């Protein structure tokens, strides 16, 4: 495939990814903003693939080896730390059946995360 053709496909998926990214998180309740930020933080740890491709080359000079190695170290910390921190945050949202189920259902209904439709507390 010619370079220009490859580039055109790459730009296409880039633009689709932008729209998808906006669409996916437009419904997130405030409650989950921190874990979401942390989760996306883990996902951009995908740069580890780039670091592996650089350092995995057979013929490379010292500079590439050193720089690539540091990149793998940093990216691995991003991946592992990112997923573990997110999991620790979400551990706290463990099931408390009735409220969480209702809440999830409502969040689905209130598309723009608007809080006004939430019900009054069951107290009193």
């Amino acid at each position, binding site marked *: 495939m010619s370079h220009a053709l490859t*580039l055109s496909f*790459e730009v296409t*998926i880039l633009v689709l*990814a*932008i729209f*998808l990214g*906006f669409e*996916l*998180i437009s419904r*997130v309740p*405030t*409650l*989950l*903003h*921190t*874990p*979401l*930020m*942390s*989760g*996306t*933080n*883990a*996902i*951009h740890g*995908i*740069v*580890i*693939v*780039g670091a*592996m*491709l*650089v350092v*995995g080359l057979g013929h*490379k000079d010292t500079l*590439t080896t050193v720089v*690539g190695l540091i990149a*793998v*170290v*940093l*990216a*691995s*910390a*991003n991946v*592992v*730390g990112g*997923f*573990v*921190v*997110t999991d*620790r945050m*979400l551990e706290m949202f463990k*099931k408390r059946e009735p409220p*969480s189920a209702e*809440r*999830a259902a409502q969040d689905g209904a209130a598309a723009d995360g608007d*809080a006004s439709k*939430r019900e009054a*507390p*069951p107290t009193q």
Partner: protein
Amino acid sequence: MGQVATNFAYLATIVAFILALKFLSHPSTARRGNWIGAVGMVIAIAVTFAQKSVVSYWEIIVGMAVGGSFGAVAARRVKMTAMPQMVALFNGVGGGAAALIALAEFHNIAPAPGRLHGDISVSIILSALIGSISFAGSLVAFAKLQELIQGRPIVYPGQQIVNGLLLAAIVAAGIAIVAGSEKQWLIWALILGSLLFGVLFVLPIGGADMPVVISLLNAFTGIAAAATGFELENNVLIVSGMLVGASGTLLTILMGRAMNRSIANVLFGAFGQVAPSAAAAAAGTNGGAVRAATADDVAVMLAYAHKVVFVPGYGMAVAQAQHDVRQLAELLEARGVEVSYAIHPVAGRMPGHMNVLLAEANVPYPQLKEMDDANNEFPRTDVALVIGANDVTNPDARNNQGSPIYGMPILNVDEAQSVVVLKRSMSPGFAGIENPLFVNPKTVMLFGDAKDSIEQLIAGVKAQ
């Protein structure tokens, strides 16, 4: 593994990441979402190992062992209150990795003049520039939140001019590279300049705005990762990086909107610039007097109230008081007091920070009120108990046009019949501005560590 098989396997990773983001959007599926993301990442790593061009394994394995164990230990050991700076740190190292990949790629393919395609050189420059800014900026954000450096804005005359000139120089270096000058020192200069810019760009931003900055830098790292995808012609990097870039940008905008400020204002407003004069004026706190109360006084107020609203802030997080707060709430409920929690979207150091802490303490979701609901309730609230929250309750945001936070939506705790503020001292909040709520005649202050104070209140309420 052939290129076609590799691409399909990478597609599995992309689908996993999309599902991860989708599941992360609901409390009931969020944890599963995170696991799906992790599985996607494992697939991507395994596939990359199997690529034909990857023949040298030891550097990868050593690097993963070192970085992975650091990440795992740091993430396991960190206290819940320090999560925001942990996110900043892990975000920064990701950006650093993207910049290093750009450096290595340029070094490898640039030597023969004219070998670099225009789009490849643009991608290399973007990932070097954005990745470096994200790395340095995140480390400054980390240092501010960890209180290694002061959280208040660091400003000096001509700061924006210096930053502007530096950015112009970086962009000029980038243009020189794209125009065909493939000199190695240019990329080094570009990276060093971008690192410096990252530091200078976050220093003048106050601690209260750090959540927005971390979110923005998170999006930056995603974009830098997508740019490395163009360098390496790798779909999984392009799509995953851009998913994070787009969702992170939206999240940043949503957070800015919650504070009724544009992102430009957050980044360049040098929040708190008027603080020194305001702080000086407030030494006498605008003529009003602060009333301090004892825990027993407050316990009586709470025990005989009909409706109490808890307003948690960073002080509760620092003191790890969330479990005690829930205990106090249950005690009051057992006495027939109606209890709820008013959650400001940017209370604490991250959006949703308070929700995370209260969820940890098993506070039922329906008791957590978001800002608009909570504000409807304050007029019929007997006691608003402010636990280490400051800027998000500051009435100056409504009344004082000269205040740097004027226009930010706040929790109108001063509409309650009475207000109790739990606070360590009279020092101003993270934004570095005074809070007239404290001298409101309705307000009493209960000084001390939030956890100690709540424990005393529990004892006091039990004694009633």
